[in-house]
């Protein structure tokens, strides 16, 4: 027989107390681990699907601007010394230090044209990157993909009286309306989109780009770092971060992370308190028994060890049960709470960390009651002293 035998017998003997501590530890580990996995899954989901949330960086030509006002009345402005951007800049953007974090670069050439007697703003785009970037677009008709295709915004289509399949003449080139965008509520409703190469040729601006929309994500660095790197490589361009859906989601995930942190800390504190109170109560109920141990020669450290072993055994079993629960519930929880489709599995490192953490927390909560037990006098074995 060893001290551990005494500890484990006690765990079995005080079943209600053991069950309470077990459930508290298991619930704490399950909740904290599940919340951690949900948060990590949401972050990973955001990294993987950042292009679904649109661009978060815009690169435009650097220009000098002179605002004009007279007597406090704004009368317009002057833009001068504009150095246009070019298609080669795509390689420059992708070549930055955090280039692997660049998901998409969507170049655009903006100009205007008279179509059927109506002046419209035209945007030359690379269909593949543009459609990947604007996942929220709903196209009535067919999705544009070829050089002869045109995509109209909802209001532009109504002004021009055009619909899917209609021919349209732009600067003398006969093109076809492949589709019309459902209303987006943005400026896009007034635009005529056409192929970038065709636009560069029709406006005689070969290789020229008005601006780039960039979808980038970096889990370990702020998006400002990527901005700074692009700015450094393209001193002739102005790079701006755009707070769009991805950033909003990042903020939301950040808030969720904070919430989970607070909840986890609360769970751990409540768990600690329950372990502490139930252990103190158990020590109080076993004063006579501890007195016997002390009277037969057990040192204070032996009593300390017995109490700690009891709680650590429960922490180990409770921790494993909690991890099992977390492994089962975190995926549906992530789907329900964060709309995450692919969740992160429970890795061996997570498993080891969670177990070590639960052991350490229970150890910390048990130190005071174990100390109280160790300080009990052997005379407690003699009820009449």
């Amino acid at each position, binding site marked *: *027989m060893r001290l551990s035998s005494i500890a484990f017998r006690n765990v079995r*003997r005080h079943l209600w107390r053991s069950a309470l501590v077990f459930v508290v530890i298991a619930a704490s580990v399950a909740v904290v681990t599940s919340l951690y996995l949900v948060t990590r899954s949401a972050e990973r989901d955001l990294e993987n699907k950042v292009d679904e949330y649109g661009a978060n960086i815009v690169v435009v030509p650097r220009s000098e601007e002179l605002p004009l006002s007279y007597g406090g009345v704004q009368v317009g402005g002057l833009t001068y010394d504009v150095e246009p951007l070019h298609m080669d800049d795509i390689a420059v953007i992708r070549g930055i230090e955090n280039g692997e974090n660049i998901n998409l670069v969507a170049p655009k050439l903006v100009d205007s044209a008279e179509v059927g007697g109506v002046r419209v703003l035209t945007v030359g785009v690379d269909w593949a990157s543009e459609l990947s970037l604007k996942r929220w677009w709903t196209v009535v008709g067919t999705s544009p993909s070829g050089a002869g295709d045109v995509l109209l915004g909802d209001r532009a289509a109504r002004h021009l009286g055009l619909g899917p399949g209609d021919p349209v003449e732009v600067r003398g080139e006969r093109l076809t309306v492949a589709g019309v965008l459902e209303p987006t509520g943005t400026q896009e409703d007034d635009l005529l989109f056409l192929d970038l190469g065709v636009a560069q040729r029709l406006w005689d601006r070969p290789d020229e780009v008005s601006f780039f929309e960039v979808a980038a994500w970096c889990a370990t660095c702020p998006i400002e770092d990527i901005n700074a790197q692009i700015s450094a490589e393209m001193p002739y361009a102005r790079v701006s971060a755009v707070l769009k859906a991805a950033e909003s989601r990042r903020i939301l995930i950040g808030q969720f992370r904070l919430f989970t942190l607070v909840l986890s800390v609360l769970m751990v504190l409540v768990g600690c308190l329950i372990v502490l109170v139930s252990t103190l109560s158990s020590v109080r109920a076993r004063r006579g028994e501890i007195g016997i141990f002390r*009277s037969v020669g*057990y*040192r*204070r*450290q*032996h009593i300390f060890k017995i109490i700690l072993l009891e709680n650590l055994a429960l922490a180990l079993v409770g921790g494993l049960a909690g991890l099992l629960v977390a492994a089962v519930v975190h995926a549906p929880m992530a789907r329900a709470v964060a709309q995450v489709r692919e969740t992160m599995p429970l890795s061996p490192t997570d498993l080891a960390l969670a177990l070590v953490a639960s052991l350490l927390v229970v150890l910390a909560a048990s130190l005071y009651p174990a100390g109280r037990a160790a300080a009990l006098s*052997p005379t407690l074995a*003699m009820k009449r002293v």
Partner: protein
Amino acid sequence: MALIEVDGVRKEYGDAACRVVALHEVSLEVEAGEYAAIMGPSGSGKTTLLSILGAMNPPTSGSLRIDGIDVYDLSQERQADLRREYIGFVFQQLELVPYLSALENVMLPLAILKEGGKRERALEVLARVGIDEQKGRRLPSELSGGEQGRVAIARAIVNDPPIILADEPVGSLDTSTGRQILDQLRTLADGGHAVVMVTHNPDSTADVDRVIQILDGSVSCDDGPKFCAIPN
């Protein structure tokens, strides 16, 4: 040199506002192989004296030497070691640990030792008090009162301590079981152990070598059982 030497022990409880003196300058010696009974009415201080003899309750003043070692000069941890090496206790309610088997109760003092052969040693001691291995596997609640008493004695002697302290060992037992316990204590004394038993029952002192009578915290008589008659 006596095995147990108590010199001018005084024990007070409470604070200055409410002080109770449990023992007044008690001095006595107990030799190896001696079977002594401490007798006295309730509240006379006999259990306090036993707890002081057991290295469990430091006196307010005075000293206790066991085998020449000044017990209360030792650290608490060394006092625990001394209890394990020198003293075996038999408590009033026997105080067996209810969730451990009889064998495990006997092994209790050995559990903190690293040496092997603990189980064999415990079985041998159990056999000496008449408990076989099969009964040793039972919980205390599954044993008769007499068997529980014998297990308590086995636990007290499993370390082969030179001193056995018994606190009212027959107080809660029927006459037959009590007789068995007293016989065991006599056997231990005959085997060379110093046995000190606290009792308030004169019938328990029939076999003792010596009666130490305590009244109001002082030794009022220290002689053979025939000479220290206890007023009930």
